[in-house]
């Protein structure tokens, strides 16, 4: 076979593929849920209903005939199903919604004109269906701090979280709804030189419910969790860094306080500083009696705390935290109640680079706005799980603070 013949066959093949692609209007179709407002007689919206439709993504063509419901045919379970209406908007010309009684239907197909029917995928994100998604919300953040009192000593803080599984629960119809359940792995802690920082870590696997509430035009979230938690701290006598001092169940509640971020929200509205205005966050946790690494019983404990941020600008972000712990039976050497606080003053590294030109030479001129921070942190008191009574001042660099 000559090269000319081969070329003609190849061209014919390409034309055939192109022709075939043009002949199909529907690129993909999936069962979809849409929350639609219902206006009452007085014209006011006071409820919203969940409608089911087939969401169709078209090839890059916006023919007006796609809005004609007579052009669409839907089948399921060996029967032809009704097409109630078509949703098609010029601002999203490649999306068509075919509305009808498709709730709970499997093995749906949709057909445009005389084209080949297309199988409708069941949307795994649909509410009411079991949707398990792996690896969402994974994050690992690190800080390195140098203690101002002993300049040669460094401390490392880390914060790790990952969703293992997630299941969507409800559609937000009112002002309060539980969005999802999830199985998470979380860990945080501090490592540094012996006797100079609160060496310790808390790691847990937890099942969490995530409520959302809409108050005063803004959204707030919370978390209710049941965890199995392991705590380690440095054993100064044996120099063991990861000495397991407690493993137990933990019941936790965390909530954002509505309206508490209004001042920052108003400031950001006025200045245009683009950073989420963090609400005051409160948390309470109860740990029943557990065990340490040697099998000895450990005391039950309440942990509680508040955290707040005042993000005035990239030049000044202040974060404050206060935490307390209360033991059922205090361990030897510890009071029955402990407290801890920290205040961190941070600047976005991006604005520091702009102020100090030599840093641009060292770190490059690519914008890192909002990603890295330099900070000065003051902390004092006893904090779980180390409960080491320290006053610290440190300067640091990190991806959180």
């Amino acid at each position, binding site marked *: 076979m000559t090269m000319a013949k081969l070329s003609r066959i190849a061209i014919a093949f390409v034309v055939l593929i192109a022709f075939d692609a043009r002949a199909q209007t529907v690129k993909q179709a999936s069962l979809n849920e849409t929350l639609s407002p219902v206006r009452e007689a007085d014209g006011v919206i006071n409820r919203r209903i969940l409608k089911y439709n087939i969401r169709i993504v078209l090839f890059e063509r916006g023919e007006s005939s796609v809005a004609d419901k007579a052009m669409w045919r839907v089948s399921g379970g060996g029967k032809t199903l009704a097409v109630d209406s078509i949703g098609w908007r*010029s*601002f*999203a010309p490649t999306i068509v919604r075919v509305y009808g009684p498709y709730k709970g239907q499997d093995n749906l197909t949709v057909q445009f004109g005389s084209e080949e029917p297309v199988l409708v995928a069941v949307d795994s*994100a649909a509410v009411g269906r079991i949707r398990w998604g792996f690896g969402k*919300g994974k994050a690992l953040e690190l800080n390195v701090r140098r203690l101002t009192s002993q300049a040669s000593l460094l401390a490392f803080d880390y914060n790790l979280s990952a969703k293992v599984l997630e299941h969507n629960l409800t559609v937000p119809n009112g002002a309060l709804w539980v969005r999802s359940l999830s199985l998470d792995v979380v860990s945080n802690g501090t490592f540094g030189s012996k006797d100079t920082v609160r060496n310790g870590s808390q790691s847990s696997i937890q099942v969490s419910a*995530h409520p959302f509430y809409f108050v005063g035009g803004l959204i707030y979230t919370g978390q209710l969790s049941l965890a199995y938690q392991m705590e380690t701290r440095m054993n100064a006598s044996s120099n063991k860094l990861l000495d397991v001092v407690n493993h137990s169940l933990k019941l936790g509640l965390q909530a954002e306080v509505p309206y508490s971020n209004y001042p920052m929200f108003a400031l950001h*509205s006025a200045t245009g500083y*683009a950073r*989420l205005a963090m609400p005051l966050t409160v948390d309470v946790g109860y740990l029943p009696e557990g065990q340490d690494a040697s099998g000895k019983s450990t005391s039950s404990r309440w942990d509680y705390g508040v955290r707040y941020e005042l993000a005035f600008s990239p030049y000044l972000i202040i974060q404050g935290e206060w935490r307390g712990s209360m033991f059922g039976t205090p361990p030897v050497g510890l009071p029955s109640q402990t407290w801890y606080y920290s205040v961190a003053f941070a600047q976005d590294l991006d604005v520091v680079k702009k102020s100090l030109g030599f840093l641009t030479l060292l770190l490059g001129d690519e914008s890192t706005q909002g990603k890295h921070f330099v900070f000065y942190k003051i902390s004092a008191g006893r904090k779980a799980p180390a409960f080491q009574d320290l006053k610290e001042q440190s300067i640091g660099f990190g991806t959180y603070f």
Partner: protein
Amino acid sequence: MPLTFNEENLKKAFADTLAGTNIGAATQGPDALFAKLVKIVVPLDMHEGYPSRLLGSANQICGNDPYGWSVDQREPTVGDDTTFEMLYENWFKVIIS
């Protein structure tokens, strides 16, 4: 009646949706935010729930007066390189009807 679908109303609704998640800067309009990456604006503690916050806010803002629009129950995917403009074009405009 639902508010007319046009670029001006859609952008205003998007700004209101973003503001509903607690980004005050969005009340100035979304254009100033468009070039910014989502993950540099949202603190670590809020990264995890941000797609849910966005969908919840879209439901509350767009599903009520003055907009009165329908909202598909789809959360956006937010990656390291996602900008607010990408959210507007690839998520917000597609879930509203």
